[in-house]
């Protein structure tokens, strides 16, 4: 059990009567980067939100590393961080203040930020190369800078599990590479990352891949496993082909 960060069983999410996600059994490995991939409308984001406990669902999500006694919402918030897709943000806040919001689960209602909070913010901003932006207003940032700061906000939680919904769409290649590097550094420190990615090539850089189609898990396997590749090609109607390029897997459209 020590190598499992999250266990989900019988997860069922319905929207307007339609079953969007139906997952019987899912174990997310600790200290690994797991990536959920699948076609549009496969229920990737919905599954992630259900696992994060952000939407109504039946079934149960168990976080083995979180002690059972700690059922309070702030304990869970310390344990599991979330970065949404196209996340909005208050434009008038400074980068520093916005990143500080990630420390909310640690702060009392009336207390001011502690030294730990300031250190965590500084570390998070430095890890995304955003420390020099700290006094800028969010509204003045470019799309890439903004996304970096939002990632810092999620990193500031210092959670064991980080869930990212499409974190690198709309980023330029260099920001995408930086993002991957930050995620890799996190898993090296033993943190668990679970992400939804649209770009299959980036998804193939993860440790494990969850192939989702019509709300069901088709395959959950290692990213270099040929069976996983086959499942991937299959859910995309064989319109993609996964190639090996010096140990890196890349997906190209098949025309």
């Amino acid at each position, binding site marked *: 059990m020590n190598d499992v960060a999250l266990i989900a069983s019988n997860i069922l999410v319905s929207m307007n009567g339609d079953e969007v996600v139906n997952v019987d059994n899912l174990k997310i490995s600790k200290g690994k980067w797991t990536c959920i991939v699948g076609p549009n409308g496969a229920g990737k984001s919905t599954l992630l939100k259900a696992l994060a406990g952000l939407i109504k669902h039946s079934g149960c999500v168990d976080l083995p590393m979180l002690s059972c006694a700690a059922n309070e919402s702030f304990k869970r918030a*310390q344990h599991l961080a979330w970065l949404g897709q196209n996340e909005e943000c208050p434009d008038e806040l400074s980068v520093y203040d916005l990143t500080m*919001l990630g420390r*909310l689960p640690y702060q009392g209602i009336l207390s001011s930020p502690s030294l730990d909070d*300031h250190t965590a913010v500084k570390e998070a901003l430095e890890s995304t190369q955003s420390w020099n932006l700290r*006094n800028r207003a969010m509204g003045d940032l470019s799309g890439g800078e903004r996304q970096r700061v939002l990632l810092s906000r999620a990193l500031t939680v210092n959670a064991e599990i980080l869930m990212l919904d499409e974190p690198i769409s709309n980023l330029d290649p260099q920001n995408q590479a930086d993002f991957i590097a930050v995620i890799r550094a996190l898993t090296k420190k033993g943190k668990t990352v679970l992400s939804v990615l649209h770009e299959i090539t980036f998804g193939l850089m993860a440790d494990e891949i969850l192939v989702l189609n019509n709300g069901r898990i088709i395959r959950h396997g290692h990213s270099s496993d040929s069976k996983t590749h086959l499942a991937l090609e299959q859910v995309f109607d064989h319109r993609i082909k996964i190639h090996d390029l010096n140990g890196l897997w890349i997906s190209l459209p098949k025309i």
Partner: protein
Amino acid sequence: MKNIDNSNSNSNSYNNNKLTSASTLLLFLLLMGCTGLTLGTCLGSTGFEASWFSHNDLISNQIVWEIRLPRSIGAWLAGALLGLSGALAQGLFRNPLADPYLLGSASGASLCVAIMMVMFDEFSNPWLYKLGLNGAAFLGAMIAVLFTLLLARGMQHTLRLLLAGVIVGVVLGALTSLVTIFYPELLPSMQSFMLGTTNLMNWSSVYFMAPVLLLCIFVSWILSRAVDSLGLGEATAISLGVNLGLYRALLILTLALATGVSVAQAGLISFVGLASPHLVRSIVNVTFRKLMFFSALMGGVMLLFADLASRLLISPREIPVGLLTAVFGGLYLIWLLSRHSVSNGNSNSNLNSSKASNL
């Protein structure tokens, strides 16, 4: 801690689009408040006269201490309540154009005041006099907010809340017009309430508003981090452990209380609630904790000076203070709009459209 603060101040050059720092703004607002209060005690219908401690002149003493001072303090308090409610409304609806009267409190208050005036004429019930017009306005504001909440079926959806507030506002406004059609003799006295007025403020208004303001600031202080986190979207706020239901309930309660009390004492003063958070935001980038505090101070200063101007401009007569705030507030917003469309129209129109769609 010190290190971090130092490095922050070293790189303040990043903040070049903002005029001043938060502490300067605080100092300025406090100073303006004191200046306004001092001027307020000197300015009468007969012109400027500074007679605070003339022991031999009881009448002028009384004018200063029993009329001018409470009126000025009252104007400041009513403005502060409005400024605070403006910040709360904009935080609640996550829309920079939200106004404290959006929940229908203004129209509820005017309807109740109109009904009360009719009842004064028709029956002379001592209970009614005890409640008074202020009480009626407060009651009306609260009932209207309650209607809005019922109509919106709770407070889960801010868009539904907004629509319900608009509907309640329109319907209650129509009812008020109906009352004044049947009793046209009410119109002149209704007018002073509808336009907003500070010349009825006395010490009891001050004693009524001051604790409410303190309470509302305290609750807003508690809610401030949750409001900031909600700026990141509901999902993120929940993921940070924020109890959205509880937080919304408290926010709406505080908003209704602050608006209701201010409307009860000063009538429908327009634009102060909308403009003060904007004014603060255009000067500093701060978290909600500071924004709501500065908005309150800003609202207080705005209404205090509007009150001074209302006494001065056509003295010895007075212009209703609400007219002045409407004119100045409107001009300010037009200026803000034109400045944005010139300097950073693109980014800002994106901002507004994204905010609007998030409603």
